[in-house]
């Protein structure tokens, strides 16, 4: 099968959906023909679809999302790009109070089919305002779906589902994933929300990981495998809805779980997954649940400081060895 990058997979999803449905349009800062997006995801799309449908906006995050909400409830399917995930803080009212609640507060009269794409994650030395992983903020908002694709295949299939679906989707990407290559079929496919993917099968311990951490977990699994420890890597792919059954099924098989997420540990993604396992699968556990996450600090700038806070293979291996 052909291999393309995560970035190309996202772009293909956008291009195919825009060709398929004229109500799909893109808006965001510098996504048009001069830049093609800060991470070049939308590069070339303005040339094909014009600057009406690939719309450069002012630096007004709250209005970018608010405009998408207004368009979504009047017949369009906007895909808004927020240049860095950290900047979603500026749009939080429109995301959490408007987009997520419009359907509910108006008694189901209308749905709000919009997608907010944004990159999270650390690792490129740009410090706290451009490096956070804030997925948990959005998991905490009923009414939103939260997607966290880790591979080009998942990125394309989930983005197509996000665009076609009738709910507001918070679509998390990761800066370090954009250049990663993976197999993506040429033919049409979509990936439903709420269906986890077992990225690697194993029998001794389950690692649940998301976004870039999936790749670190797979690397750790390879090293552990050489030492005789069989690791299963489960990637939820969407945090809301969360495929609890897939996680529980894996825990039933291995009896051990390590949860790896790049966000801060307190009240983070890993906290929620750990709570699900504790509530619904405690009896199947042969060891305590261990979480590998960032310490509760902002992301620092200097390379040794930054590398220190981001979970790495070593930390994952150490955690696995604690439970087996």
């Amino acid at each position, binding site marked *: 099968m052909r291999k393309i990058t995560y970035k190309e997979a996202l772009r293909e999803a956008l291009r195919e959906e825009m060709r398929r449905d004229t109500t799909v349009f893109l808006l965001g800062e510098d996504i048009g023909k001069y830049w093609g997006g800060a991470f070049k995801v939308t590069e070339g799309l303005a040339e094909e679809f014009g600057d009406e449908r690939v719309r450069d906006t002012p630096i007004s995050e709250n209005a970018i999302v608010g*405009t998408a909400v207004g*368009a979504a409830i009047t017949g*369009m399917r906007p895909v808004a790009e927020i240049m860095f995930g950290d900047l979603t803080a500026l749009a939080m009212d429109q995301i959490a109070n408007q987009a997520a609640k419009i359907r509910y507060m108006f008694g189901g009269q209308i749905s709000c089919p919009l997608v907010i794409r944004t990159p999270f994650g650390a690792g490129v030395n740009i410090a706290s305002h451009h490096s956070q992983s804030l997925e948990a903020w959005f998991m905490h908002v*009923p009414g939103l779906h939260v997607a966290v694709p880790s591979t080009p295949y998942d990125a394309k299939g989930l983005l197509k589902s996000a665009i076609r679906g009738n709910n507001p989707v918070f679509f998390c990407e990761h800066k370090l994933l954009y250049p990663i290559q993976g197999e993506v079929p040429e033919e049409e496919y979509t990936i439903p929300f709420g269906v986890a993917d077992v990225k690697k099968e194993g029998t001794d311990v389950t690692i649940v990981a998301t976004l870039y951490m999936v790749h670190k977990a797979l690397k750790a699994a390879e090293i552990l495998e050489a030492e005789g420890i069989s690791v299963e890597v489960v990637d939820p792919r969407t945090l809301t809805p969360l495929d609890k059954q897939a996680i529980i099924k894996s825990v039933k098989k291995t009896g051990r779980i390590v949860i790896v997420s790049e966000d801060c540990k307190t009240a983070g993604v890993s906290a929620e997954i750990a709570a699900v396992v504790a509530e619904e699968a405690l009896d199947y556990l042969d060891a305590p649940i261990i979480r590998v996450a960032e310490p509760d600090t902002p992301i620092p700038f200097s390379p040794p400081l930054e590398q220190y806070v981001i979970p790495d293979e070593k930390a994952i291996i150490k955690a696995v060895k604690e439970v087996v």
Partner: protein
Amino acid sequence: MLNLPKNKLTQMLRKILEIRLFEEKVFELYAQNLVPGTIHLYAGEEAVAVGVCSNLRKDDYITSTHRGHGHCIAKGADLKRTMAEILGKKTGYCKGKGGSMHIADFSIGMLGATAVVGAGIPIAVGAGLSIKLRRTDQVVVCFFGEGASNQGTFHEGINMASIWKLPVIFVCENNLYAMGTRQSIVMNIENIADRAIAYGISGVVVDGNDVLAVYEVAEKAVERARKGEGPVLIECKTYRHKGHSRVDPARYRPKEEVAEWLAKDPIKRFKEKLIHTKVLSEAEIQHIEKEVSVEIEEAVKFAIESPFPMPEEALEDVYA
């Protein structure tokens, strides 16, 4: 006097009365403990909603505020379902999930009231963008108060509507107070409309208690927007008869000021004008008032007799 046909003027009077009598009834029901939460009455500001919405078609859009009953009714919302929503009933527009501050009726282009001050502004801009992309000739009216004009959404939203020449009419209802805070305490300008210049659009100040004056400026703005000439900011100077919400006796307002504005009551002025220009007789007006009263009573009866939603319905409508 405007060159409006008698039936149009009669219709406008009917709407203005519907809002006032509806609000009076909501006030009574609140006192009888039938309204959960709080209410933000529109009484006194009716000329704005009616003057503006009388220019709109059913497929045009509006966005509204926490003080939204008047906007709903002016756009053509069903009184029964509006009242039922305020009482938290299953038959309400939002099945009891929104209440007084969050009423919407998408079938008439009422895109919803939002209780976050200024949040409706970018949403209206988005509806305007959607109109432009779909190539229809609809327009959007975005209602907000003068307090909302200090929010970032006001700046961000109007700027976007201006650069993209969207068919959005921004209607500021300046009732002089943001809750209890006088405009002069939080702004060094007298006219919100002056802010239009910062976004390269025109701003107009109008007597918001004169329904015909509001009608006239809104008519021009709607025409311009329909032709693709972009947004306008209309500031309507008006006054709420009651406090900010039901619990607010509005002691921060000088008595003389209240008296001065009550004397400028939009309904009294409109009726006088209609009688003076012989459009309607006093008897005809009384007849309309009676009809509207009956309609309101029916709405109240419907709302009171309607069942509350089943508790477990709280879990519905989160996702499509």
